[in-house]
């Protein structure tokens, strides 16, 4: 009963906030709706018993990716009128993309639910007592170890690539030299003097 209520609540909010992400005019509001969608998707995952994936979704997407989105979007000065004019022009391409994605999802689900993996899974369900993290870890670090490492390498290359592409040496930057700052002692910066009255101090 409560599970059904929770499911419909999460599902409804996911769809609604997904739509609002596109529909809202203010880009910051869009990001906030997107975050809400992530959250409710995490809720749906908890309902199907994938609590590890749900937590990762929140940590990675809400905690890191969406913060960076928000960071960028916040600082943009967007001309809303111009953006709305663009919607009509790209509507056809957008629609085509959406249709293609929807078709792919349907084909994937159809193939999966009648394919050998799902049939085999029905025959041998995963032991419910094994926690999620352990089940994923057992697979990821044994059978799929090389795929997992390869995925890590791809990410590493992407990260290095992003740094290489955006990093440039700029002249005239006043960088802090921490070791020099730490090496500075009070006696280098101050001096004790005993000035004679009426003579002043020469520095």
């Amino acid at each position: 009963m409560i599970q059904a209520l929770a499911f419909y609540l999460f599902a409804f909010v996911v769809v609604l906030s997904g739509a609002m992400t596109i529909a809202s005019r203010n880009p910051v509001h869009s990001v906030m709706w997107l975050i809400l969608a992530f959250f409710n998707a995490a809720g749906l995952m908890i309902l199907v018993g994938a609590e590890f994936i749900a937590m990762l979704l929140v940590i990675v997407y809400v905690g890191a990716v969406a913060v960076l989105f928000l960071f960028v979007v916040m600082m943009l000065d967007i001309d809303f009128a111009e953006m709305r004019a663009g919607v009509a022009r790209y509507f056809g391409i957008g629609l085509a993309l959406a249709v293609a994605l929807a078709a792919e999802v349907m084909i994937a689900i159809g193939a999966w639910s009648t394919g050998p993996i799902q049939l085999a899974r029905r025959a041998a369900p995963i032991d419910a007592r094994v926690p999620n993290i352990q089940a994923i870890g057992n697979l990821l670090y044994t059978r799929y170890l090389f795929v997992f490492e390869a995925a890590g390498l791809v990410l590493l290359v992407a990260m290095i690539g992003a740094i290489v592409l955006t990093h440039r040496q700029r002249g005239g930057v006043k960088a802090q030299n921490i070791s020099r700052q730490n090496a500075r002692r009070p006696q280098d910066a101050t001096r004790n003097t005993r000035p004679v009255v009426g003579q002043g101090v020469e520095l």
Partner: protein
Amino acid sequence: MISWFESSLGYDWAFFLATIIDILAIALPVMLAVAMIIYADRKIWAAMALRRGPNVVGPFGLLQSFADGLKVFLQETIVPAAANRALFLLAPIITFTVALIVWAVIPFQPGVVLADINVGLLYVLAASSLGVYGIILAGWASNSKYPFYSALRAAAQMVSYEVAIGFILISVVLWSGTFNLSGIVTAQQNMFGLHINGYIVNPLLFPMAVMFFISSLAETQRAPFDLTEAESELVAGYQTEYSSMAFALFWLGEYANVILMCALNATLFWGGWLPPVDWAPLYYVPGIIWLFAKILFFFFLFSWVKATVPRYRYDQLMRLGWKIFLPVSLFWVFLVSGVLMLTRVGVGS
């Protein structure tokens, strides 16, 4: 409690009702603790600055926080004309809520925890990564320059230190072999047979305990890392435009977060509800009292640091996070997992 309600309501609603009562049983004492700890904080600073601190309202000024609360409750909530109204009001609510939801997984005694989930520590990470939204939104929605600078600083700072915190937590998880906070606490019992409860006597995890303490200062934006509300540069940072209850929610959320970080320090490295020494008579004292004592100890450290340490420069803050904490904690994950590989091969697989 579930079974008590179950007789009249059926399991689902009994669970629902019992959980709500449990939530209140945790959240209300936390709020009371926040009120008292603000008072304690002010008293400790005052003592360190050779002042008296709050001493007028009630005996020893004990009711000061309640008087302040009543005052802000009666004030008018002012929303600046140029502000984004919805997000402006949403921001303090997010901060406050996020500060409270993490308490769901903190174990107070053996078996006394609202949600004994096996991804407890990930839940803590997930919830604490949300804390930054309250501040970013407050800064942006205020539509005012100092709050906005503060929001940018907060976003960069919290994201940077979360990375280090993540790695520190991973080394703890590796050692205890579980993400469940109760499991982590029981794994700390009688460390190495030294009759001391807590990872602090573990030479591999002690540096992580120190780094976690410093990172938790940065994560809660306490001094010396309180650059988001550096009053000499940014007026009051992201809270500048806030007044009355909205301001109070930020204030309460901040302190609830501080207590939470103290509780996490206690739970992850200092044995949580276990007594500090593994000696049978000490176990007669209820676990919640040990936990509470440890929280208060860490809170004293937080106040002490705030009263004595000067504020970091922003580049120093970033350097500490990215160039020191991140490499060291990353290396420590390798070190801990390497040691465990050599000493515990095949255990628990």
